[in-house]
């Protein structure tokens, strides 16, 4: 969402700059009775011939309302933080994605685990690793141990528990 906001802001800034310059130049040319930059007569005719109750107007108004609501929900909802606080006293943070990748690698390296994916989610003000893996169900304890070991290696705070969801491998018929 952060990247989307930045890209959207750059596009908005470009549109405002180009649109503003176009409006200003067009208005000055019209004031001086010079031939305008853009032919706005057709736009004027369209707006003068369209009624409020027409389906096109309703569709555009409804689309604008929905777009606004979608952007509002995306901005207001809680975002997953980019960083994980390792120790608030000395201002040391770990990049969340990097920690997730390391935990994924650690879980994948456990014997009997075929595929693993680790996520860090905040729960009751604490970070809790969630590992979803495919492999031997008996490997659960080893995955938890590997995750704790990796977090210790990264000097990340020790979580109260590690959620491990282990799916057995599908047997081919």
């Amino acid at each position: 969402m952060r990247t989307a906001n930045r890209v959207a802001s750059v596009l908005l800034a470009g549109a405002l700059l180009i649109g503003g310059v176009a409006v200003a130049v067009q208005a000055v040319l019209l004031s001086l009775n010079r031939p305008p930059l853009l032919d706005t007569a057709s736009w004027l005719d369209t707006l003068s011939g369209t009624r409020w109750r027409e389906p096109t107007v309703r569709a555009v108004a409804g689309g604008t309302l929905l777009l606004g609501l979608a952007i509002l929900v995306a901005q207001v909802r809680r975002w997953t933080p980019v960083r994980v606080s390792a120790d608030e006293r000395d201002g040391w943070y770990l990049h969340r994605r990097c920690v997730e990748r390391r935990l994924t690698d650690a879980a994948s390296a456990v014997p009997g685990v075929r595929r693993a994916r680790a996520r860090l989610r905040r729960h009751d003000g604490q970070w809790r690793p969630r590992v979803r893996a495919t492999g031997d169900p008996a490997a659960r304890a080893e995955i938890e141990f590997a995750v704790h070991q990796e977090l210790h290696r990264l000097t990340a705070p020790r979580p109260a528990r590690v959620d491990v969801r282990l799916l057995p491998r599908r047997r081919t018929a």
Partner: protein
Amino acid sequence: MTNAGHRLLWTIIALLLVAGGAVALAASLGTLPGVDSAAVLLSADLVDRWRMAAPWSTLSAAAVGALVALTGQRLLARELRGPGGTLRGTLSHPGRRPGRTRLAADVLTDALVRDLTGNPGVRRARVVLTGAPPHPDVWIRVDLTADAPAAGVREHVHAAVRRFAATAHCQPAHLDVTARIEPGHP
């Protein structure tokens, strides 16, 4: 511009879109008082009044266009400039005797970056100083190698900041370090 700034900007834009869309939809459905849904979007009366007000109407449109373009230019400049409030000048210290010590902020940040990357576990480092010069806020981002001992690098970073504070006589008011660690090799 900061993430919070972007979030605020797009929340305001979203509220404007919702308000505009809701008003237009109400006008289209005939539920908006004072607006006839059978009327055209741009009435002939309005067009006539615009033409009668020329050249002031077109000149005011030119002024609005210039203001919009200026807003776009300012927003674009803020987007391309990166985080605001970065110290680019000098850190100045009044001495006990007459005179002042001035230190270029760029030189100080470069020195801290060199000190940080002196550890083999630190592949890259980025330092940004913000805030008031005598006690700036220090923002550090370090990219660590996959095999870097995180505890050792952490101690190295704090030692480098202590050296920075002692050399420049510039105790950070706030220290913020973000470590990015390369994926391991299972």
